[in-house]
């Protein structure tokens, strides 16, 4: 299983801060498609994905137990 984290506007739009999904073996791109099909009103255009707290590339592959965080445009500082 993969744990998916939602932050900020994504957390409010999905109504959850995390969920589990059976996405081991899938790419980041496939993860995004899965999220998009579940929440069709979300725009993920500017959203980056981090796997296990590191920014990932869209072709990176998820492994069982990974955490995938959807990172909307940041605004710290």
């Amino acid at each position, binding site marked *: 299983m993969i744990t998916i984290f939602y932050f900020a506007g994504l957390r409010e739009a999905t109504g959850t801060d995390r969920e589990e999904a059976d996405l081991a073996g899938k790419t980041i791109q496939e993860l995004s498609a899965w999220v998009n099909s579940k929440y069709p009103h979300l725009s993920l255009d500017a959203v980056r994905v981090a796997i296990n707290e590191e920014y990932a590339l869209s072709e990176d592959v998820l492994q069982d137990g990974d955490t995938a965080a959807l990172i*909307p445009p940041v605004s710290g500082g």
Partner: protein
Amino acid sequence: MKAYEIVTEPIEPQRYADYVLRPEAGAVTLFTGHVREWTRGIRTLYLAYEAYIPMAEKMLTKIGAKIEEKWPGTKTAIAHRIGELQIGEIAVVIAVSSPHRRDAYEANEYAIERIKESVPIWKKEIWEDGTEWIGDQRKKPDVSNENKGLDSE
């Protein structure tokens, strides 16, 4: 305190300046980012910050390591506060010490640029007539239509 941390309590900037001071340091720059009341005519009541804490702390640590590599002899500490912040309160503090002042200024500014660009921290502005997650600091709240899909409204 840790040298790179996300905190929930008010930030005392002097602790970070003290942390980076060493006998070989001739210069310390301390940057504090504060909650501003007015942004181009829009009045902010307060801000709410949230972070992906473990990743944010890792990235702050990496920014510090990068700085010590780019500007040898510098020492850095960074903290960002999350939760509700009132006008004037400190959201972020960056302390850099260096033998020479030029490096202390440059490294400090580099740190804030990197934070704003990639550290997973988000700011929600609360105005009199609404709220919004700020997703791209190049945009103003009232013209951020491109980000509306991510907004809480």
